[in-house]
Every structure is written in structure tokens, then in C-alpha cells.
């Protein structure tokens, strides 16, 4: 029997669990010449804010062992232009589009949710509660703010709402529980780890913003652990990600408890990776006689 890779995040049905992580696939239409996007589970757009944001001064990225640090600063064209200029092209792609949003206040998140609500072609909303590259502190480190934003947006939105959390908290399970009880459909675990690198010749930080977010294989074991802790405690729907480069990495996240996975930094290195992960997942299931990918979710033996 052909294995079924179909999965779901609440009401959102996915042909396969492979999603493109926010900020690593542009608005979604940039590299359609290099990727068969129809073969992907879905695309989570670059984070959109109410007003356009210019982003941080360069240098914005640097390479470190097993990954990279970035501090882009949510550069984006703003919600209005996104809806006018980008969404029509995204609709034509015939793939699930989850729009990532961020705001400076509960009110801004709600206004964004209203603006996106009912717009054809938007399958879900991911709340970026965890960008480490803004002046203020990370939202998902503040339980009250997480509860308020998730509750308000869930109320304002008819599509699934996913809360993307920062790993930089004392208790990721507590944060996930707050997001879920406030009405989130799922949690996305995890965003980048706050990090820093220094050029020892110039004694300057390698990133102009000084600190940034660490992504790539270096963070994968910590991400797997976060997924497992949250799944074990809450059995909540989880989008797992952090350093996924191969199908084997994706399987680990599924075994830890993720219902879907997000591929991020790997997209920068090879836009062919997501499709390889989809076919690699199929091969893995065939090899181990798994009929339905849902059988894998949380099935780690410990």
C-alpha cells in the first residue's frame, strides 16, 4: 500500500507535513521556478506587519558552526501591499498559505487578523511571538501577552491560528499551554535561539544589531526536545522545526510529537531540500511499513 503523508493542523488539511518556515521562503512566490511548490505541505510566509518595516542595518547575517545567526528585523512590505501585490500570485500556486504576522501590541495583532480574515487563499495564521530581533523583549517570554494576543486573534480569525514560540523561556511547556488554552489551534516550536558572534580582528559583533537568532543544525536537538516536552505534556498539535536539513531530521520531529514540520535555513542552502524531504519521508515509511504518517507522531519509544 502507498503510504499516506496527509496530516492536519486542526481544520487545516495538508497533503504532507512539510511546511516552509517563515522568513525562509520569502512571501512564497520568489522561487517558484526552482521549487515545485505544489508538492509541499504548505508555505508560511515571511512575517507581515501592519506597516512596512525597513529592517535592520547590515550586516544582518553571519555563519557559525552548524548554522547561521540572523537579525533581519522583519523587513516586509506591510499588510496592505502584501494583500494587493503578493496574495494573488500565492493563490495561483495551489498550495496552503499560512501568513505569519507580528505586531507591537495586542491591538496590532488583532487589526492584522481582521485584515486577513476571510481573504481567499489564506489557510492559516501563524503568530510570530518570538522574533528575537526587535528592540523590545520577545513577546513569548511574557505569559500575559501571549494569552492576550492568542485569545484576541483566535477570536478575530476564522482560520487556524498557530502560535510560534521562542525556545528562550524557563518552561516551554507552560508557554505552550497558555497559547493552547487561549485558543491556538497549534504551536510552532521553535523560533531561533538568541545568539551572538564576534569578529576578533575588528572586535565588532558580526551582526550590526549585535545579537540575532541562531538557526540551522546546531539547534536541532534542542528543538526536538522542546517538541517532545510539549507533546508529552499537552498532546497539542505541533509544527516542529529547527535545523531540519533532511528527511531523517523531519522524522525525528514527528517521532517527538510534531504533526507537521517546518523547514527553514535549509531553504537558503538548497531550494531542492523540501521536495527531497517529502520523498524521503515516503521512503522512510515504506521501509518501516508505516501506512499513515500520523502513526509516527509522538511514537518515540521512551
Amino acid at each position: 500500500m502507498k503510504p499516506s503523508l496527509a496530516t492536519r493542523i486542526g481544520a487545516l488539511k495538508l497533503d504532507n507535513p512539510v511546511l516552509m518556515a517563515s522568513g525562509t521562503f520569502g512571501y512564497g512566490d520568489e522561487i517558484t521556478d526552482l521549487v515545485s511548490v505544489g508538492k509541499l505541505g504548505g508555505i508560511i510566509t515571511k512575517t507581515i506587519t501592519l506597516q512596512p518595516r525597513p529592517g535592520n542595518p547590515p550586516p544582518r547575517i553571519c555563519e557559525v558552526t552548524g548554522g547561521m545567526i540572523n537579525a533581519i528585523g522583519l523587513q516586509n512590505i506591510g499588510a496592505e501591499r502584501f494583500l494587493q501585490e503578493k496574495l494573488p500570485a500565492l493563490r495561483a500556486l495551489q498550495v496552503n498559505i499560512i501568513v505569519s504576522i507580528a505586531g507591537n501590541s495586542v491591538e496590532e495583532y488583532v487589526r492584522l487578523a481582521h485584515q486577513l480574515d476571510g481573504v481567499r487563499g489564506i489557510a492559516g495564521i501563524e503568530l510570530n511571538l518570538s522574533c528575537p530581533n526587535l528592540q523590545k523583549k520577545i513577546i513569548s517570554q511574557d505569559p500575559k501577552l501571549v494569552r492576550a494576543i492568542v485569545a484576541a486573534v483566535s477570536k478575530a480569525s476564522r482560520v487556524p491560528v498557530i502560535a510560534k514560540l521562542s525556545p528562550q523561556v524557563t518552561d516551554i511547556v507552560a508557554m505552550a499551554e497558555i497559547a493552547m488554552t487561549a485558543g491556538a489551534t497549534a504551536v510552532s516550536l521553535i523560533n531561533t535561539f538568541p545568539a551572538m558572534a564576534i569578529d576578533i580582528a575588528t572586535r565588532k559583533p558580526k551582526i550590526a544589531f549585535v545579537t540575532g537568532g541562531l538557526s540551522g543544525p546546531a539547534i536541532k536537538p534542542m528543538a526536538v526536545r522542546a517538541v517532545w516536552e510539549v507533546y508529552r505534556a499537552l498532546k497539542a498539535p505541533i509544527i516542529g522545526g529547527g535545523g531540519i536539513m533532511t528527511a531523517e531530521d523531519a522524522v525525528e520531529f514527528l517521532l517527538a510529537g510534531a504533526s507537521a514540520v517546518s523547514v527553514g535555513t535549509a531553504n537558503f542552502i538548497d531550494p531542492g531540500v523540501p521536495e527531497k524531504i517529502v520523498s524521503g519521508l515516503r521512503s522512510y515509511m515504506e521501509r518501516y511499513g508505516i501506512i499513515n504518517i500520523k502513526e509516527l507522531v509522538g511514537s518515540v519509544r521512551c
Partner: protein
Amino acid sequence: MARTNETVTIIENKMVGPGYVRLVVDAQKMARNSRPGQFFMLRVPGVFLRRPFSVYDADKGRLSFLYKIVGAGTEYLSLMKPGSSLGILGPLGTRYEFDAVSPGTIPVIVAGGTGIASLHFLAQRISQSGKLFYGARTKKDLLCLKEFRARKWQLHLATDDGSCGHKGLVTDMFKKFLAEQSSASSPLAVFACGPKLMLDAVTVAAAAHGIVSQISLESMMACGMGNCQGCAVKIGNEYKMVCKDGPVFNV
């Protein structure tokens, strides 16, 4: 867009100067699609992110790059042997616009260091000969002069140590040349690639003579396709991406 993501075979990866390496790969389609100023992202084993390299030449199904060993990425790349496979993505980015260089116009190239690579490709594709202003550390760091001479370009060379040509900045020679132009002189088309300070001097000097320069910028990049937004550069009042809006900018 004619870019592709392929695994190609290395034909040559040879030292052509102290620390300078010419890499040639077999890539029919990519060679055909490449235009001067464009670049490729090369997947170098041993480092995490791909590395951007501008095209040095593209001819007869072969794609060439010229690079200097400056860090771990270029060092690992230099160790790769002919016959081995290399993941490459491209061609990417904007190109030097030279189709509009009318017959009476004189192409002027200002190059600093390895900035010569993309400009060499440009000179290969411009039918008329022009003037090359080229600065490097020493005589040994001046590359591919033979090719420019063969195409009858007039060379104005500068070195930091005076071992060849003018001792000092190549931009001094370029400025002097501009100052000697009169209203009766032929119009100029200026192309430049090199260190940031050199490019600043070139664009300021050219602008003072009412000339728009086409300059190619370098940046650290993660994806090369505009997705990571890591290679931002401030042009005017907004951030542009070197990989997608550039690397060649009109200034």
C-alpha cells in the same frame, strides 16, 4: 528567469597567481544563460552556507570563476579536484547593461583586486575596446592583463607598492582621466567592481562629470535569491538586496 539548481563537474581548479584560483565547471545551460555581472551560489563542502561567486567567463558550455583564498570557504573550494561534483545555483542577480553602449561610447572599467573577475567577463562580451583602470596590492595580484591586452584595451594599472604602474590608488588615475575629458570627448560608460571605498570614489567622481556608474557590490549572503534578506545594502533611503536588486546597481 533562467537560473537552475544543479550538480556540475569540476573541469579545472587551478592556481593562477599567489592565492588566486580559477575554477572551471562543465555547465552547458548555465554557461549559456550567464550574463556579465551575474553570480552563482557554490556549495562548498565543509562550510554551512553556499558562497557567492561572480562569473569570470562563460564560453562553450564552460563556466569559470576566479577567486582568492581568503577564508575557510575558499580554502576548501581550492582543495576540490577536477572530476568532483559541485552543487551550484544560478545565474543570479542583475547584470552590467552594456547593450546600450553605443558605438561612439567608450567603455571604462575600474577594478580593484578580485573585482576584476566579473569585469573580465564584461570585457569579453563588449565588442569595442575601452579603458581599464585596475588596482591591486602588487604586480603579482594583477590578473588577466593578457586577456584585456588581446582585446586591445588600454591599461591604466596601479599597485599599493608601486611594483607595477602607478603607486597608489587606481581611483586617482581614474579621476585624473575624467578631469582630462572635455566636452568634445566621446561619452563614457563606467563599470566598476572592487572594495567599497574604491566604488564610493568612482561613483562620486563619475557623478561629478554627469556619468552614471554601474557598480557591482559584494556581500555576505545566505541564499542568493532574495529569500533570507541577509545581504541588505542601503541605496538611497531604502534597503536593497545585493543578490536580487543587484549585485550590479546604477549609481
